[in-house]
């Protein structure tokens, strides 16, 4: 049983590490680094995996855990109740080929604009950018698909306005 859990955990991590990290990068607020949040998410995935009931796909579940951890870390930081952990077996290295300047500028503008949204809108747009269908976004956020569709129209509009302004 333990071996099965470990095997599943390894597979989930290899499959999801980049998407978890993308979310952490948006939610990390100084002094918390995205790497700190990433480790918090990994710990929570490990702790919660035995309770995963299969009510949703494992990918949806990972998104849910990641968003919850990122949100609660922010709250814990505000309450000065967050002591980031350090897992030595996770290493981050800069890629050999850095991203193009133009792409980097666009990403920074996108990230800044997402960060200015409220928590619900932030999680909806992050999941949209991850290309999740509204049905799955609904499962994760607890909102109805219709509500998400309505919200998405407004979020996309305001986000585009914000990004255009930043890139001018």
């Amino acid at each position, binding site marked *: 049983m333990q071996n099965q859990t470990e095997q599943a955990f390894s597979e989930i991590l290899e499959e999801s590490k980049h998407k978890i990290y993308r979310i952490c990068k948006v939610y990390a607020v100084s002094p918390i680094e995205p790497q700190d949040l*990433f480790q918090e998410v990994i710990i929570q995935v490990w702790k919660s995996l035995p309770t995963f009931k299969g009510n949703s796909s494992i990918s949806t579940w990972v998104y849910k855990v990641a968003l919850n951890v990122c949100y609660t870390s922010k709250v814990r930081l505000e309450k000065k109740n967050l002591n980031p952990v350090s897992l030595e*077996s996770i290493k981050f290295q800069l*890629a050999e080929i850095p991203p193009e300047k133009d792409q980097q500028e666009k990403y920074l503008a*996108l990230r800044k604009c997402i960060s200015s949204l409220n928590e619900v809108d932030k999680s909806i747009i992050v999941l949209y950018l991850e290309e999740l269908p509204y049905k799955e976004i609904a499962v994760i956020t607890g909102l109805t698909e219709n509500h998400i569709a309505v919200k998405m129209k407004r979020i996309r509009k305001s986000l585009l306005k914000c990004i255009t302004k930043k890139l001018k």
Partner: protein
Amino acid sequence: MMEEELKDIWGELKDVWRNSSQSEKIELQMSGLLAELKSKVSQFEKDSIKKDIKMIKSSTSQFEKDSIKRDVTNITTSIRKIIQYFKKKKE
């Protein structure tokens, strides 16, 4: 803005988003990570329980302490009476 144009913009933003995680490599040494998690998680849980106990202890008001003391005194008195009753009966 035209529908098609918007579609293109969002398509590009999705690419920018997806590629953002490629700026860093994430290396996971899985066997080491599993060992770390096993030891750290149990320690977190112990620390968390300790913290909870400390919080419960500190949040117990004086009133509750007095109330518990009074209850203990009442129970002790009652037990003494019962013991005395049985002793007398035996005699």
